[in-house]
């Protein structure tokens, strides 16, 4: 279920720093998990059971750096809060917008000029599919 697979080479590992540290007399609690590489799964995915990657089509969120063709990391288990970028269901489509909950109104706002707000009349009509936690922007 890894969204990213860290590339673990199959070569026998050279003696690692953690072994060296142990030899020098202070045991390392991380010893068993010493892996010199950064594993994006660990840093970008809070919970693999609720995390999905989606791809953006369109430019209505370009103002916040989310552009056509970018991938987003979405956590479906998070509670959508005021100001969160969310994937919402609008007319049967998964749509990315910023959620604004200002007192009485529920607004799904675009982040580019020329895209009108989507107003949600009733809280019961708001269907948030997931909360965006990261944008993997192509530079």
């Amino acid at each position, binding site marked *: *279920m*890894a969204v990213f*697979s*860290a*590339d*673990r080479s*199959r070569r026998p*590992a050279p003696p690692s720093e953690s072994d060296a540290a142990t030899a020098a007399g202070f045991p390392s609690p991380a010893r*068993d*998990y*010493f*892996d010199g590489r950064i594993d994006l799964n660990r840093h970008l995915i809070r*919970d*693999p*059971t*609720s995390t*999905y*990657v*989606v*791809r*953006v*089509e*369109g*430019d*209505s*969120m*370009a103002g916040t750096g*989310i552009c*056509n063709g970018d*991938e*987003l990391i979405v956590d*479906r*288990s998070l509670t959508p809060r005021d100001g969160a970028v969310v*994937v919402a*269901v*609008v007319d*049967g*489509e*998964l*749509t*990315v917008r910023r959620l604004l909950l200002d007192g009485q109104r529920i607004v799904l706002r*675009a982040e580019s000029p020329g*895209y009108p707000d989507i107003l949600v009349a009733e809280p019961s009509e708001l*269907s948030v*599919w997931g909360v965006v936690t990261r944008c993997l922007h192509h530079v």
Partner: protein
Amino acid sequence: MSEPAAPPGAQRIALVDVNSFYVSCERAFDPKLAGVPVVVLSNNDGCVVARSDEAKALGIKTGTPWFKLAESAPRVGLIQRSSNYELYGDLSSRVMELLGRYALWQEVYSIDESFLGLAGTPRELEAQGATIRTAVARHTGLPVCVGIGTTKTLAKFANRIAKQNRHLQGVCNLETMDPAAVEAIMSRVPVTGLWGVGSRLGTKLDAMGISTVADLRAADPALIRRKFSVTLQRTVLELNGTACIPHEDERADRKQLIFSRSFSTPVTSAAEMRQVMSIYAQQAAARLEREGQQASILTAYAGTSHFSERAASFPSATVRLPSPTSDPVILSRAAVGALESQVVEGVPYTKAGVMLSGLESAGAQPLFEEFVSVQERRNLGELLGKVTDKYGAASIGLGLAGMSTATPEWTMSRRYSSPRYTTEWSELPVVKAV
């Protein structure tokens, strides 16, 4: 998947399963499918293998050939999907990992159902059931039902009640129900509504005057054992609250074949895990061979103990095989390759398993020449079986060369397939920024 502990006083068994699993997986990524009749078709788009409630209401039966429905589908608003086992396998492993977090022990029973050990007062258990249901819905978008009882058979029966009575909101604990109501349901439900009682057995029981669940519960266990089997005797005992159906590490039915084990000594290296996967896949292949079946999808998974103080890791991967097969070489490579990149070196894994799905009878598909592996031609499967029979499972290993886990060209018709949203980088769900 973890070893069931001996149940203390207030321990109960829950059976959690996903409602119309394949259809629910399709709906999780396609909001347009909500509330409309949906069917999922078997390999090659042959016949119906799963139906939404709305499709059931149209009178569509499992096994109906698609060509009989195709013409009227647009008129009745019926939507069809080819089976997308990569998606189902991935969502299944998410659900199973999540369920394990709520349980004292867990026994994954099939792609979409799991037994769990829970503890608490009857009301607490009901609340736990509701919590589990909410968590699965939030994490995966899939609806589940939870049945709770003192035995697996009763948990399964409670699950049925939860499914059929909307006002229960998906959770039924037999112990919080009015005993008279449970009795009334048991005397209404035919004996074939029980776990493990098929229609042929039902006919025989009926002839003896045992036609409902209540009748079977009142039957003499010794007589049932003499006339039928120890299996059915267990059902009688379980209906009366005596838990006696053991944990099964190996199961096969129409839908899938599972081979899983917990390790007495944790597996802590990727190399060891490769061996485990290879052996499990070969065992599963041998079993397929015996059943005269072939698989089109393989799911490999492993996990650390839920009680592990140290790193939690639950690698899981689903791959579609080049063509339906029972070839141990192909299955072994697929299992090893699938899990390879996700196994964390040094983490103590306490269990692992291989699940084969998309099963069909060998010979159901015309085999294209190029997909008949050399090994299949040489009947290596049989040979491996002989060697392992003689020298034990670990005596023969297959090399790890050759098979890439990139999805091979699939030669079957999957005309109505949804994208493999969670397993293929090129097929991610699209979100509109408009």
